[in-house]
């Protein structure tokens, strides 16, 4: 537990261009969207979107303290449900709001003038807090705050005071000139993800120390990437952030995302779109250079070569036609095989299995390494005996249910399919399930698609 006594603030860095008013020029109160102050404790480079188990509980309290300071300063603080609904519509993970562009977009949609983002990190007995106030109208940083202090129950009161002090320096959003924005302490980025967007001014640091505060405490390193380069084999593909914000078009094999403002190592999702290819969704870790997987071309035809256990003295070929590329297909197949004699006294029997049907992939998308599918259909097996007893038989069957698993790990699509067929008693086989060694037949095959 943290000590009960209030310990002083260690360092507060507040930068602003001019004093502010909580009222707009027309006298109405400004709307502030205070997004959840994210817990980035436990790692210099956060690996996921989940708060640390033991420090994540402070998120709500810290966010409420910040909100209370805004409210006390005359701002209308939007109910969290208001902006959470907008975030939900965009399918945004919690930390996505650390990105300036996303935060501003969500705040604007929620009707706010000011977007407040921030994060904190607890290290031992200390806590580091970083807050940013974004002018929704211009998208630029209006003011920022960073502080590192002892983490105890007095921290919240201190935080309230520091936010109030920060707001005193906040100039009216509508008056914020682009570029005249806050920066950060020391050489650290001023803000979390997105801070780089539009931030061009030199920073001015103002430090303050509370009573008894030892000086010279550095905040924990939270590496933020302003520029991220995506390397992609799909020339001309468009990249989007999950939620729709466009990153750019792959040109000469890469896309440079300026002003990314993402925390190094954090995860985010990229959507890849290109005509004639399946849209790809890929979750990546933030790094200076991110290599994206190639998109999967949409295929409308496929030719399958297959071998069925028990019918190995032959080969099958099936033509697949995909009305919906790589999703479902109609097929027309034929399998010709010989049934060799068991001893030298016997004679070879020939079978030809012709069938039609429809199949569909299930569960896994087109760019998965492994996919599952199901199919059904009907067909007939023509059997010709040789030797002294020559005869031809026809066994009509219902291809009741097939399922298969396929993979592309070896290059071409290789599949293993189990076939549950039911013969209708028209020939040599009775009205019964068709089996090989008392099991439904298995077919191994390869599919070439184009």
């Amino acid at each position, binding site marked *: 537990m943290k000590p009960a006594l209030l310990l002083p603030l260690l360092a507060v860095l507040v930068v602003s261009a001019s004093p502010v008013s909580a009222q707009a020029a027309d006298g109405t109160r400004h709307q502030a969207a205070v997004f959840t102050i994210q817990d980035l404790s436990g790692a210099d480079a956060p690996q996921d979107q989940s708060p640390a188990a033991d420090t994540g509980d402070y998120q709500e309290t810290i966010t409420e303290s910040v909100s209370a300071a805004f409210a006390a300063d005359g701002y209308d603080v939007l109910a969290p449900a208001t902006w959470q609904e907008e975030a939900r519509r965009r399918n945004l993970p919690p930390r996505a709001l650390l990105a300036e562009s996303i935060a501003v977009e969500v705040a604007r949609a929620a009707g706010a003038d000011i977007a407040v983002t921030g994060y904190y990190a607890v290290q031992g007995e200390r806590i580091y807090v970083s807050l940013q106030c974004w002018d929704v109208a211009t998208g630029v940083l209006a003011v920022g705050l960073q502080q590192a202090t002892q983490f105890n129950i007095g921290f919240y009161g201190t935080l309230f005071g520091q936010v109030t002090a920060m707001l005193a320096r906040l100039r009216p959003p509508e008056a914020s000139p682009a570029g005249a924005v806050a920066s950060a302490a020391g050489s650290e980025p001023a803000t979390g993800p997105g801070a780089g967007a539009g931030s061009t001014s030199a920073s001015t640091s103002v430090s303050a120390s509370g009573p008894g505060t030892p000086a010279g405490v550095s905040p924990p390193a939270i590496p933020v990437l302003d520029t991220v380069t995506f390397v992609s084999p799909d020339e001309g593909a468009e990249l989007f952030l999950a939620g729709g914000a466009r990153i750019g078009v792959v040109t000469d094999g890469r896309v440079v995302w300026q002003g990314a403002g993402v925390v190094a190592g954090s995860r985010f999702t990229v959507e890849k779109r290109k005509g004639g290819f399946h849209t790809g969704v890929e979750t990546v870790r933030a790094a200076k250079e991110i290599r994206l997987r190639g998109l999967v071309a949409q295929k409308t035809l496929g030719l399958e070569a297959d071998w069925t256990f028990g019918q190995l003295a032959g080969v099958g070929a099936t033509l697949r036609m995909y009305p919906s590329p790589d999703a479902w297909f109609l097929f027309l197949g034929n399998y010709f095989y010989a049934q060799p004699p068991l001893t030298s006294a016997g*004679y070879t029997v020939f*079978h030809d299995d012709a069938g039609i049907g429809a199949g569909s992939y299930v569960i896994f998308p087109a760019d998965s390494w492994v996919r599952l599918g199901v199919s059904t259909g009907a067909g007939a097996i023509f059997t010709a005996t040789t030797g002294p*007893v020559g005869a031809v038989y026809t066994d009509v069957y219902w291809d009741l249910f097939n399922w298969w698993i396929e993979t592309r790990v070896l290059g071409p699509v290789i599949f293993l399919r189990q076939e549950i067929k039911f013969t209708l008693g028209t020939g040599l086989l*009775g009205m019964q399930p068709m089996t090989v060694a008392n099991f439904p037949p298995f077919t191994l095959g*390869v599919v070439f698609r184009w």
Partner: protein
Amino acid sequence: MVRHAWHAAAAAALTLPLSACVFFLSPFPATLSQVVAKTDLSSVIPAADADSYQPCVLTPTGGDFVVLMKPNSSTDPCALVLDSDLHLIQSYTHSQLALSGGGGFAITDASGDAALGGVSFTTSALAQGLAPSGSLNGTRLSAPSFSSPNAGKNDVNFPYSGSTITYQQYSLWSSTPDSPTHTAQVDAAGNSYQVEGVYNVDDTPAAGSVVLVLSEQGDSSHVTFVRIPLYDLTTSATGFPKSPLLSNYTWKSYDSVPSSSIGFAGDCMVGYSENDRALNRYSLSNFDVIQSLPIGSSDYRLQYAYRPSGGYAVIYDPTARTLTKVANWW
């Protein structure tokens, strides 16, 4: 592309040998490729009476015949005689076979002739479709029987059902059976059985064996193989065979093996197991399964008969009224 082709070839090279174990399996009966002859008998077998026929393979001296007999019916024809290529030679009525009172069985008798019902044929007579060449001196084969050429004995008419077996033994076809009458209880509990067949599997006088195929009364697919020394069935000494059979001789039971599929095939017993959906070969020494051939489901009405000296089987399909000759699959 070359890399992909290599991967595909490697996968196929690994997979195909692994699949070789099922190379000979098929959705179709494995014996389909062993069919060497087939004949349609629908023109000579009345549809209403098709279920009454049972096939057997007779090998009188120098001959090889397939005979369809009617053990339990008195309507004609009583017997159809075909050569080993399933060409119909002749059909015989009950009266021609001295079976005016009912159906009959057929065996190759101790003198090397073919005994059908109450008469006998030499190989030549049977091959030419002639009238019977001899009689059984009043004996009529009305139940499973066997012969021992080496012992000069014909052991006939093992009873169809009951808790004891009683049969008559003839030295060749003497006018009266040897004495005493041979009787033995099957099991100590006195359960009722049905004799489905009796096969002389080794005619060595001192060391040979006979296999008795029994089924439980009312359940012809629960079969019991009993191996009895040939001596115990052909001696005139009293006390033989030893009673009860199942306490004195090697035996083994199987469920779901239709008795109509069982036969002696020269070096083993053969039957179709409904549980395994396979043709099984059973050892003559202890009746363990020594080999299986999965053939899928099989019509229980099919009637099998095997050439006692090996080589082939014939399968009678009463639905289609066809007879099919199948080369042995082992």
